[in-house]
């Protein structure tokens, strides 16, 4: 899951980034309205966290603009203004949620999960593929009755695969949703992480859940 944080106050952006990264989201931070708008339009983010007071383009304008251009990514507004009409304006401009500063970090994370869950069409939030179960709230992964420990990156990759179970995911798609802008495209890091995951999930089991689609990418499925 890849999240764009548009926030001009460096320290606020920094702790939001660290909190989200600890939850194994890939995070891009941008301090300028214009740049945020460009990124939101060119990269398929899973969630955008948007501050309203921004240099360049104000947050609300940015939001209206990307909605007009067809970006359907869930948007959570962050602002120091708590007046009702401000919240109404934000939600009417196309925001999906609204959080007033100062906020509790757990609330930000819970709301992010809720938005991602709604966008993914999984009502309970618990992802299941065959006997593999992933709970995004507790971040527990089990296969059968065996618990599996994963690093944040492995977890992020697995979550993305499971959310899109049955769909063939190309390497660029995986890059875009699991890694942030610092990702170096010319490495085989995706294949490396896939092999890590296979070792922890599929190794020694009858059914392999992660399958390679030759020439395209990977797919996660429980059937066949």
């Amino acid at each position, binding site marked *: 899951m890849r999240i764009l944080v548009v926030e*001009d*106050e*460096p*320290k*606020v952006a920094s*702790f*939001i980034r*660290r*909190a989200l990264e*600890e939850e194994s989201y890939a995070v891009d931070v941008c*301090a*300028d309205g214009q740049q945020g708008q460009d990124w939101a339009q060119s990269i398929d983010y899973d969630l955008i966290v948007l501050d309203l*007071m921004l*240099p*360049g383009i104000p947050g609300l304008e940015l939001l209206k603009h990307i909605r007009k251009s067809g970006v359907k990514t869930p948007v959570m507004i962050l602002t*120091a*203004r708590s007046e009702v009409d401000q919240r109404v304006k934000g939600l009417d401009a196309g925001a999906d949620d609204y959080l007033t*500063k*100062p*906020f*509790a*970090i*757990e609330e930000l994370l819970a709301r992010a999960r809720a938005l991602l869950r709604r966008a993914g069409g999984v009502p309970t939030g618990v992802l299941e593929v065959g006997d593999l179960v992933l709970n995004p709230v507790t971040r527990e992964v089990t296969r059968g009755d065996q618990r599996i420990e994963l690093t944040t990156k492995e977890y992020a990759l697995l979550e993305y695969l499971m959310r899109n179970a049955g769909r063939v995911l190309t390497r660029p798609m995986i890059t875009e949703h699991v890694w942030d802008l610092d990702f170096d495209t010319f490495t085989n890091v995706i294949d490396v992480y896939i092999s890590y995951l296979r070792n922890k999930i599929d190794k020694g089991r009858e059914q392999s859940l992660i399958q390679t689609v030759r020439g395209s990418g990977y797919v996660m499925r429980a059937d066949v």
Partner: protein
Amino acid sequence: MSQASIRVRLTLWYGTALALILILFAGTIYFVISRGLRDQVDASLEEAASVAIRTLGEHRFGPFLIFEDLSQNFPELALLDKFFQIFGPAGQVTIQSANIKSREIPLSQTAFQASLKGQATFESVRFDEGVPFRLLSVPIRHTERLVSILRVGTSLYPTEKMLQRLLLALVIASPIAIIVSLLGGWFLAGRALMPVNVITCAAQRIADGDLTQRITSPRSSDEIGRLASVFNDMIARLEISFRQIRQFSADASHELRTPLTITKGETELALRRPREADDYRQVLESNLEEIDRMSRIVDELLFLSRADLGEIKMTMSPISLDSLVREVQLQATILGQDRQIETILGTVEPIVVDGDELRLRELLLNLVDNAIKYSHPNSQVELSLRQIDAQAELKVCDHGIGVSDLEQQRIFDRFYRTDTARAHASKGTGLGLAICQWIVDVHQGTIQMQSSPGAGSCFTVLLPLRAPVV
């Protein structure tokens, strides 16, 4: 309702004044007319008497003159409204005109005594039937001897009747006039007070918190119109200052929310799981920075609000600006060390101004601190002091990020920070230049900035020189 009572009071005052005027007026009219009528009656009696005396004289006062002759010669004497009597020297009736008929009208003692002295007498008498008469008795003398007394009389009945009618008319007409004018006064007072009512309603709505309300008064130059426009001006000023206060507190809470968000967020994040000691140290350092920022905002806010209330004490004394500039330059050199920003002195002329040393030092330090904060690394900040006419010109110039023309207009506004300034130095509070502006204002000076984005800014402060001691 005080408005209704003003209406009642106005009407009552008006009515009372009118009633008094009417009573005085009616009394005067009655008096003048009754007096006039009596004089008229008396004059006609005198005329009749003189005619009669002249006639008698032509007949040589013949005591035996019979009345028929008299009335034949002078038909006017037979007029119904007058009667004649001629008394003998002893007061007995000798002749009397026919229209007296059988009525006995004896000569009164007063008239007789006066006649003996040769004086004419007017009398008003009323007999049993109530018919009032006016009588004139005139002595007729011949060689100092009273020959006879001529009396002419007339009924006062028509006169009294007329006066009665006049009185009746006045008694009936005056209350009617008073009632009509009271009604008119009530109506007019209501009309005149209507705009007051409108103003009251508008004031009520404004008191309920809607400061956008204004009084609509069609008239503009009368007393009420002036009241309305003064009232509207006052509300407009109130609205502006309320809006400023709202903006100010919104800005203040926004400025405080940012450091709060950071401290809360950093702390919560640190507490989510066990961390390295170094991580905790970083969080604490960051929190300390934010706490400093908050206390700086609170201090500066407090200063500005006390300044607004006029509670900042200023001790004015002659200040040597050039030595102040040199002191500040030394401090600025230390401030700029981290980023290799050198503060240099340009022309510094010896100048003395009247001012508060503490505030002037604060002004200079704020400007220099500002210049260093927004300077490019390895650049210079220049301080200069010159005398221009009767003013001290203090200049602080930097080679920094600069400010666009549009932003320059708002640079002295409270909490205003340009986007580039926010991005450049997160430590600013947005209040420093507002405080500088205030300090310059209390010293009767001006402060201006010239700037070009990317190249740097120059702040120019002009302060009046110390008035020369005579």
